[in-house]
């Protein structure tokens, strides 16, 4: 009996060590990523868009890009800076804040998420899309979803069925496996409040402001156009850095 108890105790300690070790590996990995939004610090400012407002035409129009970037994204940054001003969180990275978002006021969750998500989103887009992923990411997508087409179907479904404002995501979970999810408003899978937690490698904004000037009520048409401007080399880079 004593031996059994000691053994069980040993297993418990060992498993807990494994879990902690994994979590800490995960965190270190996030911190060593070269991707820019993991380096965001107070006071926050607009990143470089990296292409012209009209570069994604006709899939995403110039007016939408201009307002989305220079008005919506800029407003999240102003509001985030105001929400954090004079608090201890000024010293933390946005990634650290987001990972513990349940401890912050709702203005930090909304605007911190807004800044982080948009900073990531602009990098997901390019006028020179390769059309499909290659290499390790392509293999991982096939293995997780069956095929690229099946993955797109699942991602499309997440984007189209998110009721109200939100985002669709392709993320890597703590076991290195890809999964699709959606989050409301400006939440994201890195937040401790997310239903399914992971590190995002691809995202799509499905707030109406992301598509209404061009697509109005036709969100499915916007989602389908998105595939023509996905920056797969950026998605591949993120995936390969994380695994």
């Amino acid at each position: 009996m004593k031996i059994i108890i000691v053994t069980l105790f040993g297993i418990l300690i060992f498993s807990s060590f494994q879990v902690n070790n994994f979590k800490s590996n995960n965190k270190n990995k996030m911190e060593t990523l070269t991707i820019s939004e993991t380096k965001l610090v107070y006071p926050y400012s607009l990143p470089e868009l990296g292409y012209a407002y009209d570069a994604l035409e006709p899939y995403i129009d110039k007016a939408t890009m201009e307002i989305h970037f220079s008005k919506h994204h800029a407003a999240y940054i102003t509001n985030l800076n105001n929400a954090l001003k004079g608090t201890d969180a000024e010293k933390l990275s946005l990634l650290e804040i987001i990972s513990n978002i349940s401890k912050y006021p709702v203005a930090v969750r909304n605007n911190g998420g807004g800044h982080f998500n948009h900073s990531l989103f602009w990098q997901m887009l390019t006028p020179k899309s390769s059309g499909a992923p290659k290499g390790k990411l392509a293999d991982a997508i096939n293995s997780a979803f069956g095929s690229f087409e099946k993955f797109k179907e699942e991602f499309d479904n997440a984007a189209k069925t998110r009721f109200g404002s939100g985002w669709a995501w392709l993320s890597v979970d703590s076991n290195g496996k890809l999964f699709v999810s959606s989050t409301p408003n400006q939440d994201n899978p890195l937040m401790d409040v997310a239903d399914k937690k992971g590190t995002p490698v691809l995202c799509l904004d499905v707030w109406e402001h992301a598509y209404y000037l061009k697509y109005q009520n036709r969100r499915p048409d916007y989602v389908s156009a998105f595939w023509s401007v996905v920056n797969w080399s950026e998605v591949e880079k993120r995936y390969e850095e994380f695994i």
Partner: protein
Amino acid sequence: MIHQLPALKFDLDALAPVISKQTLEFHYGKHHQAYVNNLNNLIKETKFENSTLETIVKEADGGIFNNAAQIWNHTFYFEAFSKNGGGEPSGKIAALIADNFGSFADFKEKFAKAAVTQFGSGWAWLVVKADGKLDIIQTSNAACPIKDGLKPLLTCDVWEHAYYLDYQNRRPDYVEAFWKIVDWKVVENRL
């Protein structure tokens, strides 16, 4: 029962420039209509198949609730508009607003703040509580005050689709213009 898109009591161009004809074509003709179509499809062979819209709003959840509540909310929103709207309320509603909020200007400020600060998609509402007092609340996405036993008197839709073609990111401008088309007689009759 088959739910229907209720008729508007004004022409689609009647509310311009506060709300453009184009916005109404999409908002009423596409969004509101889609909620009606979705609900009719979703309730087939469910316990809500023969329920009134109000019962569904009060009792359902998930997709059935979302679509039913959005039909209810939009009908309620559009019903309070008139091309001859605006100005200040009179009679009983004016007295109640003054009693509960201090003045009409204070009420407008508080309601506008609720509409402007609702994060994401949702609604701002003037409601009567169980104790007869008026209150201003915000609801997210499709959430509807009748589910919580409140009696709504007025609502402002702050889903981006309600104003994006006309005002883009300038939600405060939309909310400010909203007052010019509110038919206070309709609001008073809801008391």
